[in-house]
């Protein structure tokens, strides 16, 4: 099977980079003090205001809903009033989010930074995010009702990608704005581990790992008093008592 480099192979490369990058960061940042320091810096760069955070959460959730449940989206959009309402909300959210991102990017570029490489990575991540948001907004303007046709075209594309047989034709037949939007989404995914924002995921991963370890050790810990009480050693080697 020959994969299209942009929409067949690139998504897998981006996913691989995301997983490997997060794991590398997890193993490299072992000291909790370093982790908390990086989290403080990341908060300064990416936190922004409430509007930025709310709009990003709303947009990410929307993309998740559209891709995971296209039928529900199409049913919702079957009534013109509901379609207009959804598209208006999404358009305003994306516009607000783009504005907030511009502010964030400008403040990041204007800050006198000490460490060049992490700052460059953050700037690259924010820029790709900007491209994704801007292309999404342009799509809403020039290719009307993306919530409907996106559910029909991009959801099967993502599904085919997750099943290991990416139908890149679905995206290749789309206007360049749509292609740019999809490509930048995967680029954001690939650059995410390089940005300081990924430290939050690393922290969550660390908590998950320690919680799993705790859960695994729990039965052993619970059995300890019982094993002490019913120690078979006394029965096996009575002379040692």
């Amino acid at each position, binding site marked *: 099977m020959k994969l299209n480099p942009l929409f067949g192979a690139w998504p897998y490369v981006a996913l691989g980079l995301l997983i490997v990058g997060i794991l590398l960061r997890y193993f490299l940042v072992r000291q909790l003090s370093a982790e908390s320091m990086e989290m403080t810096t990341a908060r300064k760069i990416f936190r922004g205001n409430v509007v930025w955070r709310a709009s990003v959460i709303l947009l990410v959730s929307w993309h998740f809903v559209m891709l995971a449940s296209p039928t529900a989206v199409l049913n919702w959009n*079957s009534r*013109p009033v509901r379609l207009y309402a959804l598209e208006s909300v999404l358009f305003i959210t994306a516009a607000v989010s783009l504005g907030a991102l511009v502010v964030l990017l400008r403040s990041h570029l204007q800050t006198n930074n000490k460490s060049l490489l992490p700052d460059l990575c953050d700037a690259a991540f924010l820029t790709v995010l900007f491209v994704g948001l801007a292309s999404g907004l342009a799509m809403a303007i020039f*290719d*009307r*009702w*993306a919530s409907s*046709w996106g559910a*029909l075209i991009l*959801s099967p594309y993502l599904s085919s990608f997750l099943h290991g047989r990416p139908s890149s034709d679905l995206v290749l037949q789309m206007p360049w704005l749509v292609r740019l939007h999809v490509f930048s989404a995967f680029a954001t995914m690939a650059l995410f581990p390089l940005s300081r924002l990924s430290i939050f995921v690393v922290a969550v991963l660390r908590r998950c790992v320690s919680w799993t370890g705790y859960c695994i050790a729990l039965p052993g810990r619970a059995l300890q008093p019982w094993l002490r009480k019913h120690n078979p050693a006394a029965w096996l080697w009575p002379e040692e008592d």
Partner: protein
Amino acid sequence: MALRAVSGHGHRRVTFLFFCLLLLSVFAHGLQAEGDSDSGGPTFSREAAAIFSKRCTACHTYGKGIKVGPDLKGVTERRKHEWLLKFIHASSVVIKSGDPTATALFSQFKQQRMPDWVDLSEKQINDILQYLSIGGPDIKPADERNAATATPRDIENGRDLFYGRRHFSYGAQACVTCHFLAGDGLRGGSLGGDLTRSYARFQDKALTEFLRAPCFRWRTAGPADHYLSTNESFALKSLLWHAGQASALSGRKPALKRSSSKYAHAGAASVRQVQPGGQQ
């Protein structure tokens, strides 16, 4: 106690009524599905048409004269139904029995006997005969009807399908998801472009071909070999014809952002074979 007995009886009655209604709704749905199928013209068994095409056309024509065997146009009027049934099932037996019609045909066609189609059931043969009696291979699918002959009801059906007010039988998506027609405001999507002048551009024959293949690789609920029923296809063609006429009358210029065929590769492939203007 008496009250409990009555309520138990009532409960059974309600259950019975419920099942009756359920059966009725299933039956009604079946009827509706049958009615919605490609029944633009006379109805016939698709299997019969396939059998005819596979087994009969090698030796017979339908209205094009003698081939190896006789022309089958009007055969159901020339011969009795029972005779045809017996002859198709086992021609050798009928000839051996000394049947005058069978022996005459046998000698007329250089003593070449028709194969005995013993594997065909009586129902299958009946279906083939019914298919031949209503026009056989001459039957035109409903979507090949010229859109200019469309009734207001056909156009309204097309509008319902275009705007998703009625679902397509095989799960295809409403055209309005990606396309729009001039004068419908912002209701339609602009990804696939304006379809107002598509009829004028492609004309009847090419548009019929276009509507036979999916305009995009949608994820449809229906089987891969079905896209639109012939009635749906005709209804859509009627709407596009009507939209073109209305636009021409009002002198409205189409807000054509992109060619409607730019992103319609599957459909465009079929249209490429049929040139605009309906010339093949």
